[in-house]
């Protein structure tokens, strides 16, 4: 095993008996940590690889971070690129750049500017941001408020408030290089569902708004339903509440 650690500082990182996370781990340049890590602060400036499970209060990745197993943290910021192989549980997640998670991703709050890929399900109380979102499993999100560019995919999306818009404003021309802005999903269900540039088989909710660029086969609503002219809806049905 490559245990190149000359650029790695580790100052007594460990969890004491009560489970309090202490100590800092910093990787400057490039470094690889072969074992599980429990610490207060894990910082990667450059390229870092952690082969074991990581549990930390705070994780900051500036550059590239590769996590071979699971990651748990109260806070995680990614400026650059991070990948987690076996699932992540994060209190507050901020991504500027790209993040991919092999298993499921459970977060309290996530703000994403860029590209996120999840192999399992996403569970989040709140997920905001703009970029391309690709989720192989289900998205269960209390409040989803995203602007999509490129192609985003999820099989099922459910939550309280679901707002999907197309990216606009400065930089949209640049972003169009990533391809058409569009979210593709089998189903979206929520109390309030407001969509743009979304292709879906079915949208169900209390208050449903189908905006510009949408193509939805079936809408079922219990409260209100609005649709702009610049959209395609196969059938809209009012269901009894």
């Amino acid at each position: 095993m490559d245990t190149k650690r000359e650029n790695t500082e580790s100052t007594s990182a460990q969890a004491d008996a009560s489970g309090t996370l202490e100590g800092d781990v910093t990787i400057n340049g490039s470094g690889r940590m072969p074992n599980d890590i429990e610490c207060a602060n894990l910082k990667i400036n450059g390229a870092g690889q952690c082969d074991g499970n990581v549990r930390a209060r705070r994780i900051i990745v500036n550059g590239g971070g590769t996590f071979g197993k699971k990651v748990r943290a109260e806070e995680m910021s990614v400026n650059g690129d991070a990948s987690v192989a076996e699932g992540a549980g994060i209190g507050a997640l901020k991504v500027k750049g790209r993040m991919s998670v092999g298993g499921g991703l459970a977060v309290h709050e996530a703000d994403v500017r860029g590209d996120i890929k999840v192999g399992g399900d996403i569970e989040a109380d709140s997920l905001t941001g703009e970029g391309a979102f690709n989720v192989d499993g289900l998205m269960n999100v209390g409040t989803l408020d995203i602007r999509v560019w490129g192609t985003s995919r999820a099989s099922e999306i459910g939550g309280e408030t679901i707002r999907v818009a197309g990216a606009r404003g400065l930089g949209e021309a640049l972003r169009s290089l990533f391809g058409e802005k569009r979210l593709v999903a089998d189903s979206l269900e929520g109390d309030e569902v407001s969509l743009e540039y979304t292709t879906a088989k079915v949208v169900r909710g209390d208050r449903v708004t189908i905006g510009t660029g949408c193509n939805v086969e079936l809408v079922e609503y219990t409260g209100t339903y609005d649709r702009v002219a610049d959209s395609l809806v196969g059938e809209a049905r009012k269901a009894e509440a």
Partner: protein
Amino acid sequence: MDTGLISKKDLLKDTGISYGQLYRWKRKKLIPEEWFIRKSTFTGQQTYFPRDRILVRIERILDMKDEDLSLDDIAEAVAPDLGGIGVTLEAVVEEGLASPAAVSAFQAVHPDSEALVFGELLSLYLLDRLLATGELSLEESRTVLATLEEGHAAFEGREYDLVCIRRMGVAVCLLVSSSAEIGLESGARLVARMNVQECVEALGARL
């Protein structure tokens, strides 16, 4: 359609809860993942739930919400963390958690046991319910206990049932995931099938 199941749409209509509530409760683990049963229908994928259990659970959540409990409190109540408890065998009998017959069967296998952790208590409770059917001999209860004690770990975090089958005087017991259907040969008879998670909740409520 299977009469034991209820579709998501009917569930929301019958209980008056919203999509948002349902998803939130799932996120907070108030409703187990296993209860979301996906089936392909001609209109695409539909989600169904075990009717009786989901209706009872939702009623309970709504009752507790009326009492102003937080979702975390409710989660604790419906899926209690019982890892840390210890109950003596005397207390088990006194509290009526299991019959003296079940306790002595348990003692025959674990002669040194005095205080039970939750897993052991659960095994004892299940054994007691099986014995109460009158279909199981004390001798056979050894197999039941061994099956439970060896099998628990493999089903960690999933819904599973304890199943007891009898054929020509021989009892066989097994653990299966709750969604599994069982087909028996004609000479065999299903003696009991009990959902372990329900027993965890029933037991949790009495501690």
